[in-house]
């Protein structure tokens, strides 16, 4: 607590990172962090031609990357919980709408992801294998996994308070942090504050990764795998969990029916906002939300210890 926190900002995996530690990170630690991020990107990014998932586009098998089982097991649970709305072979659907490696944003119409992905993709025998051509996209929980890996590397190297912020996905250690929940329709505003201690707070929203469709309507990156079309009911989701991968997994699930149940089973607290401006939250949610007085159900968000409502 003696020195001022030192932020380290950089761009990686298509977003802006900020890592805050109590003391400046030695060059060797920074190198280790960037090395980890690059190694992960080389395995899982569908945006780079030299990645493992790009090599698998045509089908085939490779030695399973280190994080394959953890991420794909979680994706299988999400797929199960959401009736197939979440699917790790969603890459082709994103490409079809134009969110491709070249950022073409050329909308060629929606394409559903293969519903039988469990039969096409395997990862349990030490190999990551695709029996037919497809594009793996581990989605938000992939970024969460990477945040967890980076945090682990930092914790080994440095004691004290640590914040890893990967463009809105946060993992914090040490003193509690008050995190604003960004309004998905107005980045100047927040809809609430969530105090987080030794945990991860992850968010997913439709407002930034968005582009025009062939007809001029807006497309965004959260797709329903069953139709290949962007979700139209949920605008933003937030979840707090012990690790960022779990929090990110829940933020994805919350875009679909089945998400709240999965969050309940995993013991994860959450908040979500619908596209018509309604806000919902989990039972016992610790977020301090700036909601009006017309709350439909009891259980209003927590005790508001930090409420700044006026």
């Amino acid at each position: 607590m003696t020195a001022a926190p030192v932020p380290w900002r950089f761009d990686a995996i298509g977003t802006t990172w900020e890592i805050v530690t109590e003391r400046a990170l030695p060059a060797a630690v920074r190198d280790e962090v960037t090395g980890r991020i690059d190694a992960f990107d080389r395995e899982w990014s569908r945006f780079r031609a030299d990645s493992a998932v790009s090599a698998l586009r045509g089908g085939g098998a490779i030695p399973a990357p280190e994080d394959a089982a953890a991420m794909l097991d979680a994706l299988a649970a999400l797929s199960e919980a959401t009736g197939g709305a979440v699917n790790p072979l969603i890459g082709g659907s994103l490409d079809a709408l134009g969110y491709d490696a070249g950022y073409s944003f050329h909308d060629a119409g929606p394409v559903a992801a293969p519903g039988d992905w469990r039969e096409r993709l395997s990862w349990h025998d030490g190999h990551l294998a695709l029996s037919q051509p497809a594009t793996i996209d581990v989605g938000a929980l992939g970024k969460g996994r990477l945040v967890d890996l980076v945090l682990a590397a930092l914790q080994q190297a440095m004691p004290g308070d640590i914040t890893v912020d990967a463009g809105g996905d946060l993992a914090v250690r040490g003193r509690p942090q008050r995190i604003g929940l960004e309004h998905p329709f107005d980045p100047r505003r927040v809809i609430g504050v969530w105090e987080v201690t030794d945990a991860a707070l992850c968010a997913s929203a439709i407002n930034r990764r968005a582009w025009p469709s062939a007809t001029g309507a807006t497309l965004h990156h959260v797709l329903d795998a069953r139709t290949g079309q962007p979700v139209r009911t949920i605008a933003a989701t937030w979840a707090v969990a012990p690790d960022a991968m779990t929090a990110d997994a829940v933020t994805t699930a919350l875009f679909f029916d089945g998400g709240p149940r999965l969050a309940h089973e995993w013991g994860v607290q959450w908040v979500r906002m619908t596209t018509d401006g309604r806000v919902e939250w989990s039972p016992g949610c610790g977020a301090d939300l700036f909601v009006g007085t017309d709350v439909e159900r009891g259980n209003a968000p927590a005790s508001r210890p930090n409420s700044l409502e006026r």
Partner: protein
Amino acid sequence: MIRTALASRPVRAGAALTAVAGIALLAGCAPTASEAEEPTTPDTGSSSTSDTGSTGSDSGSGSYADGTYTAEGSYATPESVETITVTVTLQDDIVTDVEVTGDPQKRESEQYQSQFIGGIADVVEGQDIDDIQVSRVAGSSLTSGGFNEAIETIKSEAAS
């Protein structure tokens, strides 16, 4: 569960199966799966007393084996993908019974709300970031330069 009585009069199998696809169209917006057009496995769980027959023939012009066929069709609503199950009973290439059942996922989602959602507010007031004390903000991931440039290019091309 929705239960719809349909087509009491016998119709040719091909027409009925086309109609099955039509039901999905009527029931929702865009049908996204075409499984409904494909007679596949005989439904052993059906209450029908007919024998289950063999798997349906795979070409349009041939005869279909007698039996009960079940197919699932789906259509997208804004909230979810709704699924209907259509059971067709065939005898001598004539449809003798059609049953459509649906189990809309919206009903389930209402159930979720009671069990797994702590509360709902119709309005969120929001606060200006400058008026509150937070160490940082969590929202959608910031986009990278490449993404932003591509979007700008698209917009300028659309405008020209």
